[in-house]
C-alpha cells in the first residue's frame, strides 16, 4: 500500500507543477466560446497532413492565403487526416461547428457525401466541397478546375524537351479526371513534337511514395526521359532526378525538392476562388454553384519554369498560354482517335463544355497504358 | 581432517509471487559424497538447485561454494565455480554430434583444434569411466547415452560439483545401474554429487546423506545408513504413511472385456507407433503397461479411446469391434470406457473452466436443445468433490488453480462417475505427492473390486509390480511380453523394455 501512496504523491506533485506552468497559457482561448461578432470561423478538412509536400500542402497554402487576405476577420480551423469514411467527415465538421465554424470546406472527393448530409442538417452554415459534383440550392456548393489547360501547357514543355520522344506518366486510377490529365498532357506534347509517344502506369492509389517511385522507375527503364504524375507525392520527380531525366510535377512547385529534374508543374490557386466566395458568404450573398475554374480566372496556373527549361520552350509556353488566357483555345480538338483506333472526336469537332470533357473514358492514340 | 564443504547454503528463501518455494533452507554437501535431495513434488527441490546453478537468485540467505560466499546472477557464474547441472530435460542439440554439443557455448579461439579437443574430452571421460562415441549425432542416441553426454559436457567444463535433477525418471533399470556406477566413480574422484529424486529405494542405494525438504523447508539432513525408508517418508510427508500397495485378488470369474488384436497404428510421421499389438483385458484386473517413454503408450490409449486411427487390427469391446469409431460413436454404442489421459490439463480437462463445466465435457452434447444446463453437473461436481475429498475453494473454481493431486481427482472422479467398464489411465500419479498417489491407487483398486478392467500406464516399475495383476511390457511399439509381476524381477522387465539389449536403445 505504501508504494501506491508514494506513486499518488508523485502524481499530485506533477499535477501541481503543471498548474504552475499552465498559468501563463491561461489567456489563450480554446474553442468557440468567444466569438466576436464580425469574425467568421472557417473549417477546412484535409485528407492528409498539411506537411505532405503535395496535395494537402497545396490545399493548405490556399487556406493560408485566405487567412492572410482577411486578416482578423476570419478564424481558420483545420483538421488533418480526415479519412473518407463518412463518420469521420461528419464528426470533424460537427466538431468544427461546435467550435463556432460558419463555413466548412472539405477538400477530398470522398468527403462529398458527408458534406451533403451536413448541409441538410445545418442549414444555417455554408458548405463547400472541392473536386466533387454534389450541391444544393441554399448552402452547399462545389468547386473544381479545368486542369487540362495547365496540363496541356506542361505537356508542351515535356514534348519539347524529350530526346527519346517517350514520355512517362505515373497515374492514380484509370478514371475520368486522371484520363483528362493524361490526354491533355499528351496533346500538349504532341502539338510541339508530332513523333512523341507516352507510357502510363497506374498505381491504383492516390498517393503512395513507394508505388509512385517503382512506377517511375519502370517508366524510366522503358526509355521515357520526361516524367510527370497524377499522384500526391514527389517520388516520380526524385526518381527522374536520380536517373538524370526531367520531370513535370503536380500540385506543388517542387523546384527545391528535385532541382535536378523539376521543370514545372500545373498547380491550383485555391485562394483565387475561395477569397471572393468567402466574401460572398460573409455578406450572406452566396448562391451555391458548381464552379469550374480556368487559367483565365487565375484559379489554375503553371509553376514558374525552372532554369532547366530553355528560352525557346519558355517562349512557346508563353505563346500558347496567352491563347488559353484569351479563352479561345479548346484542348480536345478533333480529329482524335483513341488508342484502340476508334475515332472519339471527329474532325471539325471539339470537346468544349465541362460535361463533354468529363465523360471521357478513353486514352488517345500514341499513349500506352501499362496496368 | 574435516572434509571440504563443497556447497553450503544457509537460510535460503525464495518466493514466486505469494508462493514461498523455499523458506529458510539449509544444505551442506561435502566433497566426496553423494547427497540426495529428497522431497515430494513441489517441496522446493528444483528451486533450491536452480539457485545453485544460477537460474534463480535467493531472496535471502547465503550460498557458499568451497567456503567462498557467492552471488550467482547467471548460469555462467555457476559454471565458473565448478558447478555442473544435469537437468531433467536434456539441453542438447539434436542435429549435432556429441562433440559439438560438448564444446558448444564454450569460449574458444578462432581456430578449433579438433584433435586437441577430442583428446581433452577423452581424458575427462576416461577419468570418470564414461564412455561415449564423440561423433554420434544426438538424435541417434538413447536416453542413457544422452545423459552420459550431458555429464561429460559439464565435466569437460570443469565441474567438480554435479547436480542431477531426477536423473532416473526416464531410464531403464539397466541404465540406472550404469548411471550409479558413474556417480560412484565421481565420488571416488572427490567430486560432490547432489541427486534430486523422490524415489526412496534409489536414495537408499546411492546416497551417503539425505536432506529432506517439505513444503519449501528443510526438514533435516540424515546419514542414509542410519535411517530406513519409513523414516524418510515420515520426514517427507510429515506423518506416518502406510506404504504398501494392496494387491487384491478378485475371486469372481473374470470376464473378457476388451480384446486388442493385431493392432497397427501409424504416427504423424507415417511410421509405425504400434505394431502388431495383441492383448486381452479382463474384468476385475489391473493390467499394467511398462515401457521406456514413447514406446507407444500414448498411442495405445488414444487408439482404444477412438482418438487415433488404426492402420489395421481389431479392438473388440464386449464382442463389438470399435475400430474406426469416433469417441462419440463409442459412447453412443453404450460402451462405457473411461480415459485418464497423460496430459490432464491439456487433454482431460479444460484448465480455465471450473469443476462444474469440466464435469460435462464428455456428455454435454447429450443435453437437449442448444443451451447448456448446469444443474445436473453442479450436483455431480458437488458429489465428486465430497466423495474424493477434493480440496477446492468451491466447485466454481478454475481447475488449473488446483493442486496436481486435486486436478487428477477431478479427472478421475468424472471418469469413474460414468460407471465405466474399462478404465484407461495414463501415468495417473505423475507429478502427484505420495499421499495423493496412494489415494489414486486406492481408487483404482476400488474400481477393480467393482469389476472394472483397468489399463494402467505407469513409469515407476515398483508401483507397476505392486499394483498390477499383470504387466504388459512395450518396446518400441511392440509388446515385448506380458508378465506376472509375482514371478519376475524388476530387471527382467527392464530387459524386456529395451528389447533385451540391456541399456542402449537402437
Amino acid at each position, binding site marked *: 500500500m505504501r508504494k501506491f501512496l508514494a506513486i499518488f504523491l508523485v502524481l499530485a506533485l506533477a499535477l501541481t507543477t*503543471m498548474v504552475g506552468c499552465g498559468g501563463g497559457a491561461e489567456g489563450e482561448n480554446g474553442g468557440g466560446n468567444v466569438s466576436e461578432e464580425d469574425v467568421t470561423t472557417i473549417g477546412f478538412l484535409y485528407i492528409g497532413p498539411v506537411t505532405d509536400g503535395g496535395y494537402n500542402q497545396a490545399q493548405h497554402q490556399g487556406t493560408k492565403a485566405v487567412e492572410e487576405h482577411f486578416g482578423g476577420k476570419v478564424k481558420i480551423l483545420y483538421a488533418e487526416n480526415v479519412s473518407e469514411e463518412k463518420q469521420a467527415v461528419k464528426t470533424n465538421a460537427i466538431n468544427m461547428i461546435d467550435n463556432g465554424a460558419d463555413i466548412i470546406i472539405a477538400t477530398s472527393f470522398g468527403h462529398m457525401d458527408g458534406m451533403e448530409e451536413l448541409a441538410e442538417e445545418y442549414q444555417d452554415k455554408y458548405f463547400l466541397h472541392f473536386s466533387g*459534383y454534389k450541391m444544393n440550392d441554399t448552402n452547399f456548393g462545389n468547386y473544381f478546375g479545368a486542369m487540362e489547360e495547365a496540363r496541356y501547357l506542361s505537356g508542351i514543355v515535356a514534348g519539347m524537351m524529350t530526346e527519346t520522344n517517350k514520355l512517362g506518366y505515373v497515374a492514380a486510377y484509370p478514371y475520368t479526371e486522371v484520363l483528362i490529365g493524361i490526354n491533355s498532357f499528351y496533346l500538349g506534347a504532341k502539338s510541339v513534337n508530332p513523333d512523341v509517344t507516352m507510357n502510363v502506369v497506374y498505381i491504383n492509389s492516390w498517393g503512395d511514395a513507394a508505388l509512385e517511385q517503382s512506377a517511375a522507375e519502370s517508366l524510366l527503364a522503358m526509355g521515357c526521359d520526361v516524367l510527370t504524375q497524377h499522384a500526391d507525392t514527389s517520388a516520380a520527380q526524385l526518381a527522374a532526378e536520380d536517373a538524370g531525366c526531367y520531370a513535370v510535377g503536380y500540385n506543388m512547385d517542387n523546384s527545391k525538392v528535385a532541382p535536378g529534374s523539376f521543370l514545372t508543374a500545373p498547380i491550383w490557386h485555391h485562394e483565387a476562388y475561395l477569397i471572393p466566395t468567402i466574401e460572398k458568404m460573409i455578406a450572406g450573398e452566396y448562391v451555391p454553384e458548381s464552379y469550374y475554374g480556368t487559367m483565365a480566372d487565375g484559379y489554375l496556373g503553371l509553376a514558374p519554369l525552372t532554369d532547366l527549361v530553355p528560352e525557346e520552350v519558355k517562349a512557346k509556353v508563353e505563346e500558347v498560354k496567352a491563347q488559353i488566357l484569351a479563352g479561345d483555345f479548346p484542348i480536345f480538338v478533333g480529329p482524335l482517335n483513341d488508342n484502340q483506333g476508334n475515332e472519339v472526336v471527329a474532325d471539325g469537332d471539339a470537346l468544349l463544355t465541362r460535361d463533354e470533357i468529363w465523360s471521357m473514358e478513353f486514352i488517345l492514340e500514341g499513349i500506352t497504358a501499362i496496368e | 581432517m574435516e572434509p571440504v564443504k563443497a556447497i553450503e547454503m544457509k537460510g535460503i528463501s525464495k518466493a514466486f509471487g505469494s508462493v514461498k518455494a523455499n523458506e529458510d533452507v539449509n544444505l551442506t554437501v561435502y566433497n566426496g559424497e553423494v547427497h540426495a535431495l529428497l522431497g515430494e513434488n513441489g517441496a522446493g527441490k528444483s528451486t533450491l538447485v536452480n539457485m545453485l546453478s544460477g537460474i534463480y*537468485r535467493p531472496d535471502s540467505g547465503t550460498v557458499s561454494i568451497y567456503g567462498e560466499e557467492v552471488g550467482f546472477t547467471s548460469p555462467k557464474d555457476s559454471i565458473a565455480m565448478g558447478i555442473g547441472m544435469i537437468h531433467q530435460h536434456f539441453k542438447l542439440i539434436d542435429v549435432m554430434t556429441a562433440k559439438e554439443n560438448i564444446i558448444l557455448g564454450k569460449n574458444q579461439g578462432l581456430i578449433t583444434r579438433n584433435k586437441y579437443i577430442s583428446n581433452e574430452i577423452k581424458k575427462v571421460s576416461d577419468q570418470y569411466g564414461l564412455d561415449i562415441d564423440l561423433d554420434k549425432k544426438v538424435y541417434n542416441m538413447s536416453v542413457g547415452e544422452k545423459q552420459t553426454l550431458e555429464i561429460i559436457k559439464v565435466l569437460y567444463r570443469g565441474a567438480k560439483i554435479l547436480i542431477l535433477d531426477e536423473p532416473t525418471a526416464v531410464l531403464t533399470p539397466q541404465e540406472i545401474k550404469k548411471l550409479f556406477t558413474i556417480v560412484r566413480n565421481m565420488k571416488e574422484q572427490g567430486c560432490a554429487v547432489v541427486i534430486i529424486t523422490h524415489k526412496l529405494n534409489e536414495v537408499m542405494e546411492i546416497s551417503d546423506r539425505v536432506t529432506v525438504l517439505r513444503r519449501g523447508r528443510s526438514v533435516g539432513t540424515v546419514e542414509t545408513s542410519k535411517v530406513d525408508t519409513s523414516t524418510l517418508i515420515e520426514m517427507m510427508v510429515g506423518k506416518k504413511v502406510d506404504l504398501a500397495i494392496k494387491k487384491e485378488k478378485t475371486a469372481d470369474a473374470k470376464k473378457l472385456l476388451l480384446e486388442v488384436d493385431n493392432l497397427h497404428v501409424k504416427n504423424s510421421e507415417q511410421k509405425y507407433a504400434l505394431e502388431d499389438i495383441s492383448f486381452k483385458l479382463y474384468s476385475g484386473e489391473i493390467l499394467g503397461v511398462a515401457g521406456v517413454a514413447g514406446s507407444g503408450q500414448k498411442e495405445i490409449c488414444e487408439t482404444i479411446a477412438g482418438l487415433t486411427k488404426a492402420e489395421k487390427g481389431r479392438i473388440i469391446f464386449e464382442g463389438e469391434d470399435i475400430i474406426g469409431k469416433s469417441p462419440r460413436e463409442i459412447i453412443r454404442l453404450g460402451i462405457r470406457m473411461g480415459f485418464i489421459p497423460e*496430459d490432464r490439463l491439456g487433454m482431460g480437462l479444460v484448465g480455465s473452466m471450473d469443476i462444474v463445466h469440466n464435469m460435462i465435457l464428455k456428455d454435454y452434447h447429450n*443435453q437437449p436443445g442448444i443451451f447448456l444446463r448446469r444443474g445436473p453437473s453442479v450436483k455431480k461436481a458437488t458429489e465428486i468433490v465430497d466423495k474424493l475429498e477434493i480440496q477446492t475453494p468451491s466447485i466454481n473454481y478454475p481447475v488449473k488453480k488446483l493442486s496436481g493431486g486435486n486436478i487428477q481427482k477431478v479427472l478421475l472422479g468424472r471418469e469413474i462417475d460414468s460407471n465405466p467398464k474399462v478404465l484407461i489411465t495414463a501415468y495417473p500419479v505423475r507429478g502427484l505427492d505420495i499421499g495423493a498417489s496412494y489415494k489414486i491407487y486406492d481408487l483404482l483398486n476400488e474400481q477393480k473390486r467393482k469389476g472394472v478392467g483397468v489399463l494402467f500406464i505407469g513409469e515407476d516399475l515398483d508401483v507397476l509390480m505392486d499394483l498390477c495383476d499383470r504387466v504388459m511390457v512395450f518396446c518400441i511399439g511392440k509388446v515385448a511380453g506380458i508378465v506376472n509381476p509375482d514371478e519376475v524381477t524388476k530387471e527382467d522387465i527392464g530387459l524386456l523394455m529395451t528389447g533385451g539389449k540391456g541399456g542402449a536403445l537402437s
Partner: protein
Amino acid sequence: MNIISISKREDLPQKKEWLIRALAVALSIVCAGLVIRILGYNPLQVIPSMVSGAVGTEIRLQQTILKAIPLVVTSLGILVAFKMKFWNIGGEGQIIMGALGASYVALNIEGLPKFATLILMMIAAMILGGFWAFIPAFFKAKMGVNETIFTLMLNYIAIKFVTYLQYGPWKSPDSQGFPKVATFSNNAILPKLFGIHIGWIIALVLVVLVHLFINHTKKGYEITVVGESQETARYAGMNISQIIIVATLISGGLCGLTGMIQASAVEKTLSATLSGGYGFTAIITAWFARLNAIAVLFVCIAFAILLQGGAYIQISMQIPASVADMIQGIILFFVLGSEFFLQYRVNINRKRLNAKEVA
C-alpha cells in the same frame, strides 16, 4: 546484474486490481499532460476539453456513440474468434465484404418493404462477412494453415476489390465521371431512434446474445474448449473442424454486420474506406475486455470517448492530428500497460542496489 526481476502474480484482490487501473489512468493523464506542456499547449485546457468534447453536449455524445456502435459489433465478432484462439485480424476485410453484400441487396433488389430490405441486407452482409472469414477457417481446419497472415491478407483483397467496383463496374452513372457507387434509396437506410441510427440497439442486443452464446450454449462451450486446448476437444469427441468453421462464420458474420450498419446508416453507399480501421481497433478492445461480451460494451464506449475526444481537441485547440494521436497513444499505452502489472510483479532488489552503491 539483475536489479529488477519480474515474476508472475498470483490472484490479485479485486480492489487492488482496480487501484492499479485507476493509477494507470491517472499516470497516463499526467504523462500526456507533460507532453502537451512540452509541445506548448496548456494541458489544463486540453485534457478537460477532450472529455467534454466526447460527452459534454448531446451532439458530442451522439458522435461518441456513433463511433462506439461499429466498434462494439466488430469487437463481438473478434471476441468469438479469439475465444477459440483463432486470431482473426481480418475484421477490416470482413466489414468491407459485409458492406458489399448489403450494398448488393440495397442497389439491386427493389420493391420490398423497408423492413424486409434491411433484414435481407443484414443477411447478405453476414453471409459475405462470414464467407470472408470462412476461407481462412477452412484452410486452418483442414490443412492447419496459419490464420493470422491469411486473414490479414484477405483485408487487402477485400479493400482492393471494392475499390475496383467503385472505379469500375459499380460506378454510378450519375456521378459525372467520379468514382462513386450509387447512394442507397431510403428503403435501405437504417432508421433513427433518439437521433442516432438504430445500430445502437443492434449493438446492445448483440452484446446480450453473444454473452449468452459464449456462456450458456453448447456451441459456446465447445468454442471455449477448442480455444483452451484442441487436444481436450478431441478427447471430448468434439468435431473440431466444424467448431472452428462455425465460430469463424459467426465472427466474420458479426464483422460483416458492422459493414452493413456502416454502409446503410452512415455511408448510405459502398466505399472502400467505410471500415474505418474498426477491424483493427476491435482487436484491442476485445482483448482489453478480456473476451467478455459485457465488458466489450464498456471498453468500446471508453474507446469511443478517446477517439471523439481526440478528434474534438484537434479542432477546438487546433492541435495537429499527430499530437492528438499521441495523446491517445499515451493513454492507451498506460492502460494496456497496466494489464502487465496486473499479471506480473516487478521486484527491485534493494540489497543488490545498495551493494552497487557501496561499490
